[in-house]
């Protein structure tokens, strides 16, 4: 995919359920509105306009990421429809079986899922920069403690998170620097990876390698 500044790297038409012609119309309308707003805004606030290109680019990447996350959430809703939901019980076997059931249904619903479907190349580039920057700024002892707690296994998409491994604490300040996720999804760290984990189904939804 080209990264030429004149051409958007992400195209919302790549997402499931989008029709290219519809999107072309929407794009035209958006472009028209943006041009109009920009003309007015540039008269009143020229300083702000200078700061926009990078912010706009990041906003595009994040909008794409959010759209993909939303698509995943929608898919899980469809895939798990009719299955018993996790609910309070004093029977741990029931929790385990429902968790497994959700995991199986989601795996079946996205059997063709590949690494990068949600955490795309472009999103990964932004996230890596954030994680690396956070890690580098920690004192040496802090880096060691963080590393020591991180599990060491290579993730796979749709894999059940192995219960024998701890869920490494996610640094609170790093969490605040990443985009918020909807309820039921979370970020976690592995040896060299940042994963996106479905909490209720306990499956690895997607991951980015070489984040440190």
């Amino acid at each position, binding site marked *: 995919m080209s990264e030429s500044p004149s051409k958007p790297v992400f195209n919302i038409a790549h997402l499931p359920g989008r029709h290219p012609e519809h999107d072309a119309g929407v794009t035209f309308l958006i472009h028209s509105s943006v041009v109009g707003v920009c003309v007015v805004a540039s008269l009143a606030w020229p300083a702000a306009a200078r700061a926009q290109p990078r912010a706009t680019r990041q906003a595009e990447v994040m909008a794409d990421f959010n759209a993909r996350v939303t698509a995943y959430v929608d898919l899980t809703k469809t895939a798990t429809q009719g299955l018993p939901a996790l609910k309070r*019980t004093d029977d741990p076997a029931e929790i385990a079986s429902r968790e497994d059931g959700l995991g199986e249904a989601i795996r079946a619903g996205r059997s063709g899922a590949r690494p990068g479907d949600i955490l795309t190349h472009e999103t990964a580039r932004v996230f890596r920069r954030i994680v690396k*920057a956070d890690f580098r700024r920690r004192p040496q002892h802090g880096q060691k403690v963080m590393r020591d707690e991180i599990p060491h296994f290579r993730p796979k998409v749709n894999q059940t998170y192995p219960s024998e491994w701890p869920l490494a604490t996610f640094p609170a*300040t790093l969490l605040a620097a990443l985009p918020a996720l909807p309820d039921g999804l979370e970020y976690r760290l592995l040896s060299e990876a940042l994963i996106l984990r479905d909490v209720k189904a306990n499956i690895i939804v997607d991951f980015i390698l070489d984040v440190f």
Partner: protein
Amino acid sequence: MARSIRRGVGALALVTGGWLAGPAAQELTLPLKPDSVRFGVIGDSGTGGAPQYEVGRQLAAYHQKFPFTFVIMLGDNIYGGERPQDFIQKFEAPYKFLLDAKVLFYASLGNHDDPNQRFYTPFNMSGKRYYTFKKGNARFFALDSNYMDPVQLAWLESELKSSGSDWKIAYFHHPLYSSGMHGSQTDLRVLLEPLFVTYSVDAVFSGHEHFYQRIKPQKGIQYFVSGGGGQVRTGDIGASTMTAAGFDADRSFMLVEVADKELSFQAISRTGKTIDKGTVPMRAPVPTTAGAGVPEVIWRDPGPVASLNLLDAGGTQHRPDAKGTFTFLREDTQATNPTFDVADQQGVQWKVTLGEEARTETAATRLVRAAGYFVDEDYYLAELTVRGVTMLQRGGGLVSASGLIHGARLERRPTGVGKVRTWGWFDNPFLGKRDLNGLRVMMALLNNWDLKEVNNSIYEIGGERRYAVTDLGASFGNTGNAVTRARRAPQEYADSRFVGSAGSDLIDFVLHNVPISPGALNVPADRTRARMEDVTRQIPRADAKWLGRRLSMLSDAQIRDCFRAAGYTPDVVGVYTQAVRKRIAALNAL
């Protein structure tokens, strides 16, 4: 299914020697006051190993002497696999005596716990990763320190704020203070400690470190580490001046009693030996917002004006360290300019604002403070580095990849200060009084056209309610409608009219705010804007002169300092200083 698990517990307990053969409780140091709240504390317990069972037996033995009604769990409740049999082996069997005695367990999540443990009824988490519950006069806050996201923080602040309980006790897995292998969790501390301080949390219990450690009170809060419920890291408590007491020779647990204004604690080893004991007094409560009888103040004599240091906002000891590293906390996407919170290396929280208002706000707060009015404590930094600020929804383009930011205003987030509500220019207890009228003139002097009610706040501090203007960013330009007004326009400010019509007793100061089209006055927001012009109209001459006299005590150097503190170039400082001096002279000439 539940019944079969209970049968399983019985079988397992027999294999492991049973719970009835437990030891007799030894010394009990707790006061056993009538109607007290009594509970046990276990952390990092879920190994399923023999030592966990031995701790369970000690707990059962002490329950005979000290009938506690619940146990708080500090995380790592189930280590390793989380199959159904693990819940039996690592929880139900070791604590069967207590479970049978109807003792409730309230779990928090550790890094070894699957968050789906929240659905396990015996952990009483109500299906939530973090939750709160009340026992007697104490409210407990069980947090998920593995994943402290902004949603959880907002929830915590809201719950702390609305808690009417005498005692506030927080517990979670990762310790904010510890001298063990993992050490203090500073990432968490910068987020949680300000909330604990502000809302008067009394005691905090954590695990993660496999030992017992009592920390000397930090900012008035008593911290305990009690992570030896199943494992121990022998000799792991490092030398530290913050340690009040510690025990890392064996497994341990705690018993706690809360009665009236005192929390009593006893830490006990696996063998029943008392390893620490003591009492914690209740912290002073946050000032209430009841209002009745609370003095209200809008102006206070700042003392000798000529000696005010206007380069600083609150004394040199409050100034942020421009060379230090700040940690990004959260973004405020509702503010007019790009705004986010950071914490410095001392844990002080600051609100950072980027954009054109950073300078004007900084300069305006100093002048307003010099006049004797309450303002936020603002500093302008030409450059600062913020860790983790790379994903701003707004203003991302103003931040370099390394977190370097140019031109930011830092507003100190004070602790122990509660915002009561906003106040309106036409709805406050000072209407018609000199002190309010002086502030109205001050707004005209600054050309601060953004006089919305939301920009005014009442703070409760030191037993009084202080009325403050908390957003002065629209100052030092010219006033006008949405098209004609401008911020940070020194020459326009200097050239604009200050005194309008002057009657014998009442003065109208100039503050234009009427919308572009008169027809637009039908829009409520525009009607509000038009009304703002009245803020600076019909002001008694004597009150305006009073303010003029006060401001005339400022030297040119002091006025210059207001603008120097805001990072303006010497030329601009000169223009603004002359313009302000001219306006002060105009007040004195009335």
